[in-house]
């Protein structure tokens, strides 16, 4: 059984502690202690906790957080023993504009790992339904890990009604904003597209303050959903008739290039396929991985070379500066210093 050491953070439904294994104190784990609320939830357990356990147990993949064990403590608390992910999340990296620099190769590496995680969930018929940068944790080796399966569920059953009140608003696809109760893996693909855009822009792409504003932003940046570009859309439960004079046709490639040009034309092509308004025209997670962007230049950065929170980039910068025969200071006393004239111009 693991021992809890210190608090790592607190979320809506849980408090997370850093712990270690009794048998091996060097093995660190994160212990997620689910909050109990007998008043609101049946059996005192939240649906989130149940989902998290249920789906994480099924999924074992390098880009999905590992669930080592589940146990209950004295007061019937549910505790999840999770893989400890010490390097924060993707949101921290995106926001640290001054401290962390990255380019297309890094974006491709991160998106590639997210793409694999989402594809693997869908391959196992599980929707994540809360993909966003702060649910994408970074492991010690730089690997991206999809976490927080509190909103996950299985999918593909015909006629089974699903909630449209899922996915954090900025990452929520138009079909959910319009009240669709039957949907597919493509909801997660939209979220992936907005994360992709955010990685490039280094700020949230569509940041609506209300659901209505979110829909307006989608109309403005992607296009207004109408029967012509999205057959059947007007039959969705919460469809709004958009003002005829105010309809934005679907944005073309030049528009995306002007905003996301740094991803290159091939990258922009993938981004657009993930942000298609009509979910049936959107790429599936499999199609995302089949896209030619991944194998075109530049090659994705190796995970060990990706910029990391705290010390990561500075360290890397030092290594790059120290070229030629120069050696780290500690060895300097015993070795003659070599001046690097070849670098002079």
């Amino acid at each position, binding site marked *: 059984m693991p021992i809890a050491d210190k608090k790592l953070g607190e979320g809506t439904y849980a408090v997370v502690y850093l712990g270690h294994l009794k048998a091996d104190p060097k093995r660190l784990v994160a212990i997620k202690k689910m909050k109990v609320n007998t008043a609101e939830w049946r059996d005192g357990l939240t649906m989130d906790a149940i989902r998290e356990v249920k789906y994480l147990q099924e999924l074992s993949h390098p880009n999905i957080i590992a669930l080592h064990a589940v146990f209950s403590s004295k007061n019937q608390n549910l505790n999840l023993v999770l893989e400890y992910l010490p390097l924060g999340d993707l949101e921290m990296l995106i926001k640290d504009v001054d401290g962390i620099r990255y380019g297309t190769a890094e974006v491709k590496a991160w998106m590639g790992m997210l793409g*694999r995680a989402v594809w693997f969930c869908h391959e196992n018929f599980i929707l994540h339904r809360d993909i966003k940068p702060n649910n994408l944790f970074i492991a010690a080796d730089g690997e991206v890990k999809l976490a927080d399966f509190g909103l996950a569920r299985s999918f593909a059953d*015909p006629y*089974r009604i699903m909630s449209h009140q899922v996915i954090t608003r900025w990452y929520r696809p138009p079909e959910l904003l319009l009240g669709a109760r039957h949907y597919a893996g*493509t909801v997660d693909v939209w979220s992936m597209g907005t994360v992709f855009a955010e990685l490039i822009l280094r700020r949230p792409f569509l940041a609506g303050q209300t659901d209505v504003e979110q829909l307006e932003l989608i109309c403005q940046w992607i296009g207004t959903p109408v029967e012509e570009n999205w057959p059947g859309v007007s039959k969705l439960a919460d469809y709004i008739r958009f003002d005829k004079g105010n309809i934005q046709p679907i944005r073309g490639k030049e528009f995306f290039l002007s905003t996301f040009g740094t991803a*290159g034309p091939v990258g922009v092509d993938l981004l657009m396929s993930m942000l298609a308004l009509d979910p049936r025209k959107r790429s599936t997670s499999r199609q995302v991985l089949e896209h030619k962007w991944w194998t075109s230049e530049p090659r994705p950065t190796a995970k060990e070379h990706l910029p990391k929170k705290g010390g990561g980039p500075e360290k890397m910068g030092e290594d790059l500066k120290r070229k030629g025969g120069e*050696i780290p200071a500690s060895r300097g006393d015993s*070795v003659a210093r070599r001046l690097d004239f070849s670098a002079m111009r």
Partner: protein
Amino acid sequence: MSRSMQSNGAGPRRPGDREDICPVCKSTRYLNPEMRFLVNPECYHKMCESCVDRIFSQGPAACPIAGCARTLRKQRFRQQTFEDLKIEREVDIRRRVATAFNCQESDFETLLAYNNYLEDMEVATFNLLQGVDVDATERKLAAFAAQNAASISANNAKATETRTAQHAHTAAQKEQARLNRAGATRADVASMAEREEAHREAIDAVANAKDEPGQKVVLLKKSTARRTAAEKARDKQRQQQQQQQLQHPGDSTDHEIYKIQGLKPVIHPPPEKAYDPFGGMAHTPVYYTLQSHYEHPWLDRARTDPGIVAGGYDLREYYHRTMLAAFAGLGCFIDEEMGEKEKGRGEGDDKMVATEGAAMAAAAAAGADRAARRDVL
């Protein structure tokens, strides 16, 4: 060097521009404020740019400074970096030595071997600077350079690659910053795409150069093709001479005398595997081939009802899941089955094509089950 009068020229001044009279044509900066001085690392004699143009444009010629008769090439003239020509020369020599001596500490088996190597390098530099043992030192340099040829070009490629990547990176960041400032026009978009493409090509070029050393050879061949027959003949002669020289005992021992001592054996890292977006996972079904349509009346509404399909619901995912469930158990007996199969028949249709019936039986069963439990989460 005497300090000259106040400069009246507007152009940027560099070290060595202090003197205002060209020793060759005697023109003065007073009359020609734009005048620039150049030196050639062959002899470091200084002269003005127009003299260089005049004397060396037709090809290599002798240095016009009295008492020097070295043959100079226009291409090698350049502006001085340092005020003191002695330093200029020393830096040149050091740079040249550093290219031949390009091993790093990590290349050596012991620290002692590395220190000995560094000492060798300093001695070579000193000799060239002071004009001591120049011939032997030059031979040593050539021998080292030959030994290191592969790593020298690899290191150069790496340096260029890093530089190009950095340029591309900075440019991309600037570009994004500019885009973020919004208001980018359509015209900008087009030219930006072009620039992107150019960057990409530059990076590609470097990447390819690294991957296939063959490319350099191709370029060489092309330029050879352009040469005249006479030149080719001369080349051939030279080659023969070189070959004779190589066979000459005095020369062939160079490589043994001037061998870098204490180097670790070189281990080449295996070439990087191509990036696999699926991360090495199998992503096609093994036991069945999925069809795009399975007939069943229970499923018809899920195919057509806009309230269902407009949200992206896709029955094909249900087919897929059903098939996966139906065939999931098969993996457990795979070893036995393969053994049987290999004995029984040769290779052939190990992929079973699922029949509609099998899928539909599973679908109906699952459907009945699901309809009973209805959750709305």
